[in-house]
């Protein structure tokens, strides 16, 4: 388990060979949101399979490459396509890119995902700025012998998502007339969507949106000392007592339609960020 440190070193050695900058932020782009990578200037794209120890992304609408370059005049690394637990990857593999961001010198992690909305006051297409999360993945990326070079044994989780950045994102949303809500994200393993009874349960325990990613990455961000901000695009409403069958093309269409709004928020936060 202590070989994780060496894996990170190998990966950053390889990446530095292609792109020798110190990033301000690492960005993880979820379902249908890959378009932000297109806005990165002087981009160097590295395929995941070329980077030592990186797994290959298998999910639909995920490209599977690391795009490094300038966004809002700041050096960033963006993952176009992420790894999910339902693909069968270990939590350590899923979160390796976050540790690579940190080792490259980033101080901020920006995560986005597509999610199901359970709060009846929200609508499909709205953006949720993640305020807190519940881990129902019944796994944790930090299980195993702790490597003190990477972070503490028991990281605190009283503020997994940076409060200042959340406020900044909501302020930008108001200014740009984008519908955005602060909310609680619950992570499940998937890959099947939830039953009605499960949606009722998740709502009952205090979650506003549900998805199959993000939480492992944010736990690791907290472990290795990155500030984190998370955006969820509500791609379908999951109201257990009026549930409609989920349709993957519609979900991806809504994610694509929300993409410009999400880009504005991500770039707005990045522009204001002084880290």
């Amino acid at each position, binding site marked *: *388990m202590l070989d994780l440190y060496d894996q990170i070193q190998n990966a950053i050695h390889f990446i530095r060979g292609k792109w020798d900058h110190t990033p301000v932020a690492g960005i993880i782009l979820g379902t249908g949101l890959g378009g932000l990578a297109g806005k990165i200037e002087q981009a160097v794209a590295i395929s995941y399979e070329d980077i030592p120890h990186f797994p290959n992304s298998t999910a639909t609408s995920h490209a599977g490459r690391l795009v490094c370059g300038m966004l809002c005049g700041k050096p960033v690394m963006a993952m176009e396509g992420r790894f999910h637990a339902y693909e069968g990857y270990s939590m350590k593999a899923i979160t390796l890119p976050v540790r690579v961001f940190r080792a490259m010198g980033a101080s901020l992690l920006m995560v986005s995902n597509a999610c199901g909305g359970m709060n009846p006051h929200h609508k499909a297409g709205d953006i949720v700025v993640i305020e*807190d*999360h*519940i*881990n129902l993945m*019944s*796994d*944790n990326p*930090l*299980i*195993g*012998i*702790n490597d003190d070079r990477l972070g*503490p*044994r*028991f*990281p*605190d*989780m*009283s*503020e*997994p998502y940076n*409060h200042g950045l959340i406020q900044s994102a909501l302020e930008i949303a108001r200014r740009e007339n984008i519908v955005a809500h602060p909310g*609680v994200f*619950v992570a499940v393993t998937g890959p099947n969507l939830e039953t009605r009874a499960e949606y009722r349960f998740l709502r*009952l*325990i*205090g*979650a506003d949106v549900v998805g199959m990613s993000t939480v492992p990455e944010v*736990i690791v961000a*907290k*472990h290795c000392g990155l500030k984190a901000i998370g955006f969820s695009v509500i791609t379908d409403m999951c109201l257990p007592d009026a549930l409609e069958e989920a349709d993957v093309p519609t979900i991806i269409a809504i994610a694509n339609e929300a993409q410009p709004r999400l880009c504005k928020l991500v770039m707005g936060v990045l522009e204001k960020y002084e880290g």
Partner: protein
Amino acid sequence: MKADRFTVAAACGEARSAAEFIRARCSTAPRLGVVLGTGLGPLAEKIDHAFALKYADIPGFPHLTAPEHRGDLVCGVLRGCPVMLFRGRPHAYEGFDRRTLTFFPRVLHALGGETLILTNASGGLNLHADTGDVVVMVDHIDWMGRSRGGAGNWRLETGMPPFAFQSTDFQPPASSLHFYDRRLIQLALAAARRHSFYAFPGVYAAMTGPSYETRAEYRLLRRIGADCVGMSTAPEAKMAHTLGLKVLGLSTITNIARPDAPRIATPETTADEVAHDAADAAWKVMAIIEAVAAAEEQPGRHRQVRTTAGRFKALP
């Protein structure tokens, strides 16, 4: 301890060989076993005729990685009762599977012990709880999730065969309604009153960790009925109960979860603080352990207990 198949023979065999090793070095068979959690290690210094064995030297014992867990076994006498203290325990967040997590109760059972006290440090969820209070566990919520290995849960947790393959030596517990011994709970609460500190009966939620809970998770745990939350004890309690040991769970509250407090007022939880607060309240846990040891020592009670709770024959 990484055999592929978790068979009854293997499970009993590994506990038995550890027991043989211990028996050859400690003169008295323990009647009471205590697993000492975070910050409680120094309690071992109160034991008479103490004799310590390093976990690393005992066959089958896990190699611990958690901070504040020393990893040695102390045999001795407390208030006239032969005891065995497990100073340091394996945790799920270290990557140990259920089989390793339940090793200590199996060793105690193989040595002929009757009672197991499980101690830990936890975060307080109950609105009335304060730092330094002791929760006498009446029940737990096992939310440790993953049972790695894939075989039936029952087998992984207990090392027992599924119901269909019971041998005469093994019977499943009558019910899981009382993992924690009713009489010991009362005895513990009475000891707290006698020593004038606050202890209350409560439900312990066992999470995998190692990250502490988020606010949203604290709210969830409070809503489903937990009074405190930690990262151990539940697997050990289940195993001990299954083996017919009487179990007492003592949880020291080392920090208070305040999910709804204004952000500015919520201090972060750190492992150092947890260890420090646990050490501060160690005397309370010790007072209860001593009370249990004194009660165990009475010979009349000893015999009575054998007939009511001894569902299992101790292994030869």
